[in-house]
């Protein structure tokens, strides 16, 4: 018997997790018809909502706010138990009491991106105009759109300037977009494992993932909620392919090698004989339980369209010319999704624009995912950068 089911059906039904889409276990900033969001595609989106979490306390002069931007499949639950997965927040290595993003000193804000599926308006949300789920009727969004929505959230909190904007991968793209779009509103920026544009290879990987979703007959042209299906196989395969790009050859070899899964000999089948296969299938299965397939299409598309230089006649340095923001960029030696060379290009552009920038490359075999993991040198440098920015900003400093 040959088992061809790569990705198991989700235990959490899509309709169950839809609770988080319209009525999230989070704070919600709702923007009415009078506050439309002008999208890059030309559509005015209204009404819409942004779901967010906060940690720590905003000080009296509102100068200690940090915005954390999440990556492609992240969410606003940075440092609390995730309501869907029941797992700890995805950036608890960096955010918490005494951590680099010290919740005892800073007011940390993290929001679900526009187009996401954890409470901010996206393709899984109910379209108030029709009472139906948006699906593919949702307008195609961009990274600048996400950042404009975040800026409206920050406005609604009465915060003029953020002490820092922090993010890795797609979160790093948002961070860089913040500094390009609102330089005076960003005192410092920490962008990790990212770039100011998505490379051809990365677009190619995203296209592979989208095609996997759309090739699943259960996708139903994006109307799977109405049809009572869920493209879990397609989305699972998309996640498996993407997950490989988040790791490195060395990390896969270290974790799994050619070891067999619960068996001594090959089964001469297409079952998951190898541990690495079993691991990937698990990654696919657990992902489809928490993520919306259409949201995955929209967010990968937003990353593909991202190119800050294109908005400045192809000159990246013009995007950052004379900004007063203090930058820190970091990359990881084994990251082949956003390799060091891309960060270095951004650094050159910042230098050419006369911007104050630090750049460190961290040696690790953990690949792109290193920014989410316990990599002490990365965490130490992040903390030191924030600490020095805090002292210039007149905020309390650790070890002073």
């Amino acid at each position, binding site marked *: 018997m040959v088992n061809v089911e790569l990705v198991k059906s989700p235990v959490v039904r899509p309709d169950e997790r839809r609770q988080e889409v319209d009525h999230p276990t989070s704070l919600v900033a709702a923007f009415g018809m009078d506050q439309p969001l002008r999208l890059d595609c030309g559509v005015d989106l209204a009404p819409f909502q942004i779901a967010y979490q906060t940690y720590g306390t905003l000080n009296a002069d509102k100068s200690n706010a940090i915005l954390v931007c999440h990556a492609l499949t992240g969410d606003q639950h940075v440092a609390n138990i995730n309501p869907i997965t029941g797992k700890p927040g995805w950036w608890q290595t960096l955010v918490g009491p005494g951590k680099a993003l010290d919740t005892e000193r800073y007011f940390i804000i993290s929001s679900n991106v526009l187009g996401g599926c954890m409470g901010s308006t996206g393709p899984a949300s109910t379209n108030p105009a029709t009472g139906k789920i948006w699906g593919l009727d949702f307008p195609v969004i961009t990274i600048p759109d996400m950042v404009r929505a975040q800026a409206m959230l920050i406005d609604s909190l009465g915060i003029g300037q953020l002490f820092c904007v922090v993010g890795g991968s797609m979160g790093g793209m948002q961070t860089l977009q913040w500094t390009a779009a609102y330089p005076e509103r960003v005192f410092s920026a920490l962008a990790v494992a990212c770039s100011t544009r998505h490379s051809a290879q990365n677009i190619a990987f995203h296209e592979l993932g989208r095609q996997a979703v759309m090739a699943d007959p259960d996708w139903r042209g994006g109307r799977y909620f109405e049809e009572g299906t869920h493209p879990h196989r397609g989305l699972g395969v998309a996640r498996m392919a993407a997950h490989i790009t988040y790791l490195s050859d060395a990390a896969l070899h270290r974790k799994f090698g050619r070891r067999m899964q619960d068996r001594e000999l090959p089964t001469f089948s297409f079952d998951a004989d190898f541990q690495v296969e079993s691991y990937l299938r698990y990654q696919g299965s657990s992902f489809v339980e928490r993520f919306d397939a259409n949201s995955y299409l929209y967010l990968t598309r937003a990353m593909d369209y991202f190119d800050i230089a294109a908005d400045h006649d192809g000159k990246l340095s013009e995007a950052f010319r004379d900004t007063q923001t203090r930058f*820190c960029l970091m990359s990881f030696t084994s990251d082949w999704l956003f390799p060091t060379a891309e960060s270095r290009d951004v650094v050159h552009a910042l230098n*050419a624009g006369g911007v104050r920038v630090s750049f*460190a490359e*961290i040696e690790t075999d953990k690949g792109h995912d290193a920014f989410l993991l316990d990599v002490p040198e990365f965490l130490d440098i992040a903390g030191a*950068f924030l600490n020095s920015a805090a002292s210039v900003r007149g905020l309390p400093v650790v070890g002073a």
Partner: protein
Amino acid sequence: MELQQKVLPLKSAVATPAPRGTQDYRGDHLLVAEMIKPGSKVLDVGCGDGDLLQLLESRGIDGRGIELSREGVNRCVGKGLAVVQGDADTDLINYPDDAFDYVILSQTLQATRQPRVVLENLLRIGRSAIVSFPNFGFWKMRVQLLVGGRMPRTENLPATWYDTPNIHFCTIKDFVQLCDEINVKMERAVALDLYGRPLRLNAPWWFWNMFGEQGVFLLSRASKSSQP
């Protein structure tokens, strides 16, 4: 060549390692810092662990750094300094003209592949450049080569010939000649002895070239009209 110099109260350059107080900086660093006008924007090429940058920042100077070694960069960023990883030979080209008031190349010129190109880039990026380097004409070097017949090794340059990063040693005289060749104006020159103390000011070049363990030069672009 006319040189303008000033005696400075300098600390020992190679003092025994001790926990560093605010005044406990290297002699050549203090000399460099003294050459820079407050409020300037400075790029330190090959900034190492960032000691000089920290000194400059403590004096209200906007300092940036480039460092080749990952360890050095990460230590600098950990100190809150604006330092990026880069190579003097390949990365200076990415900086625009006149981006800085001063560009510093401290004890790094001899380790570059193309010292002349690097020097030209320093004075393209910065309105002024400050260059310090070990003097291969220092008497101890000469004695080791003359008497011992082997490549010199000193307290400050202990590496053997086969593992040294220093591939383009020069003497103070050599450097002065290069500056003349590429139309660079020397605003100031100081030779330091083995302990980081400046040699006496009115000494002739041969004396500096013999007894200076390192040379520190403040350079600027020669105005084109004054050149033939």
